[in-house]
């Protein structure tokens, strides 16, 4: 594309494993499950009664109390993760700070798969009870998906491109990829990119449940998310946010930013096959991984670790394994593959952002997080999934896969920075 290179200088994570990048990273390395019985509401007749709820989030630590009231939980997660990432990076914006980026050249691309569904449920209930002329005047701004990037741009004075991709479980991988592209093309010099999700609500849980997409291992929540294991029976809903600060490399170096990793490739495509099922043999996923490698000018052998989409559904994990084999050939036996969804649950629109941060950390720190709950090997899933225990490994490049309902795929490729 162009000679401009893009680096990661800040991260923010929120998940069932906790609030904060370091807290999440340590929990991932320890192989901790964040899955438990749903506590936020009574799931009553819903077949699945488990999820990866965020338990330690205090919005007032990141957001003015008054603003909190006006924001749906998904946007609170987005804002808090963005605040962490900006603080870690020291992202300078505006002429009043040393090396400040021109505000018009700083983008915010932050998505959500579902958006403000808890606000939607609450206001619909209120409308039925009191009348639809008694809805909160904040309802629409709580619900719409682009309010997260909107609010982040207001706080940090980012006047560049501002939008929210919506592509189900690939949402925030698309956000990061599109932010990368914008910097590569020279439209922008920096971006806040990622995604957030807060859809563990009666409609969210009930909706995925009736699709038979979710695990029903209610009696053993910590063992419910078991990607690539023979006994997997569906995904477990997670929630939270994953946010990255991307900067053009020369500018980041000039200001003395601490560079975590380089984002070198991005692929985006479609299965054009089915609303929920992946294309046979993981055809679309394989094509997307190849696109990411091509965009980086890299070979499969360069990749040492894949942070898999690995949802723990029978379909995804078998197909993703086939797709990896198709792309990586003999190297598929050597590359480490793990799914951190085994611990966080599936964070839907926040998954790509969360796993993008995990990929960058794996590169920078030389440790690969495991796939937990690996007890019964599946003959269809026969790669090295880094079972149960984190592993020290100095890898040069990491691939992060995200595939969504609707047949949408996004793959990111990260490289150790040198």
């Amino acid at each position, binding site marked *: 594309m162009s000679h401009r290179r893009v680096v990661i200088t800040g991260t923010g994570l929120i998940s069932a494993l906790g609030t904060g990048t370091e807290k999440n990273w340590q929990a991932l390395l320890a192989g901790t499950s964040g899955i438990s019985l749903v506590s936020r509401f009574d799931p009553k007749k819903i077949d699945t009664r488990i999820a990866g709820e965020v338990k330690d989030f205090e919005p007032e630590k990141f957001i*003015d*109390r*008054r603003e909190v*009231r*006006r924001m749906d939980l998904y946007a609170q997660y987005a804002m808090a993760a963005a605040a962490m990432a900006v603080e870690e990076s020291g992202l300078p914006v505006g002429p009043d700070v040393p090396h400040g980026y021109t505000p018009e050249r700083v983008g915010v691309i932050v998505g959500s798969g579902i958006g403000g569904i808890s606000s939607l449920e609450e206001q619909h209930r209120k409308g039925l009870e009191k009348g639809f002329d*008694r809805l*909160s*005047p*904040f309802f629409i*701004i709580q619900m719409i998906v682009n309010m997260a990037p909107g609010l982040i741009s207001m706080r940090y004075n980012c006047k560049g491109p501002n939008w929210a991709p919506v592509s189900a479980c690939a949402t925030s991988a698309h956000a990061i990829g599109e932010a990368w592209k914008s910097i590569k093309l020279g439209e922008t010099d920096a971006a806040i990119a990622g995604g957030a999700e807060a859809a563990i609500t009666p409609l969210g849980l009930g909706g995925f449940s009736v699709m038979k997409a979710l695990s029903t291992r209610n009696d053993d929540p910590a063992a419910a998310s078991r990607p690539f294991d023979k006994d997997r029976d569906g995904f477990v809903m997670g929630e939270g946010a994953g946010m990255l600060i991307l900067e053009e490399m020369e500018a980041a170096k000039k200001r003395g930013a601490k560079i975590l990793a380089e984002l070198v490739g991005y692929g985006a495509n479609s299965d054009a096959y089915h609303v929920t099922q992946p294309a046979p043999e993981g055809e679309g996923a394989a094509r997307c991984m190849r696109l990411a490698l091509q965009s980086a000018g890299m070979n499969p052998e360069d990749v040492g670790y894949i942070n898999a989409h690995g949802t723990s559904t029978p379909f995804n994990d078998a197909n993703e394994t086939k797709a990896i084999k198709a792309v990586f050939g003999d190297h598929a036996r050597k590359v480490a593959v793990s799914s951190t969804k085994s611990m966080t649950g599936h964070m839907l629109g926040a998954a790509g952002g969360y796993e993008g941060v995990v990929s960058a950390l794996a590169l920078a720190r030389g440790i690969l997080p495991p796939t937990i709950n690996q007890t019964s090997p599946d003959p269809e899933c026969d790669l090295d999934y880094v079972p149960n225990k984190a592993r020290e490994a100095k890898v040069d490049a990491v691939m992060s896969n995200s595939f969504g309902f609707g047949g949408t795929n996004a793959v990111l490729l990260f490289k150790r920075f040198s």
Partner: protein
Amino acid sequence: MSTSVIETKVKGIIADQLGVGEDEIKPESSFIEDLGADSLDIVELVMAMEEEFEVEIPDEEAENIKTVGDAINYITTHKK
């Protein structure tokens, strides 16, 4: 309902919705200029007061409620 009871309740609603301390809320305080409300906050405040005091505040009347004192006066006058 006495004016002082109304005043206390109105201040409570404002403090809760605008996230300001009750000691900052004076009868002469302007919702927008002093308490930092925007147009959406005003809509929410009006609706909350309508529900709390069971009064109806038509839009054209709501436009004239600019200070905390205006709100207290309106409710005192219209509350049955």
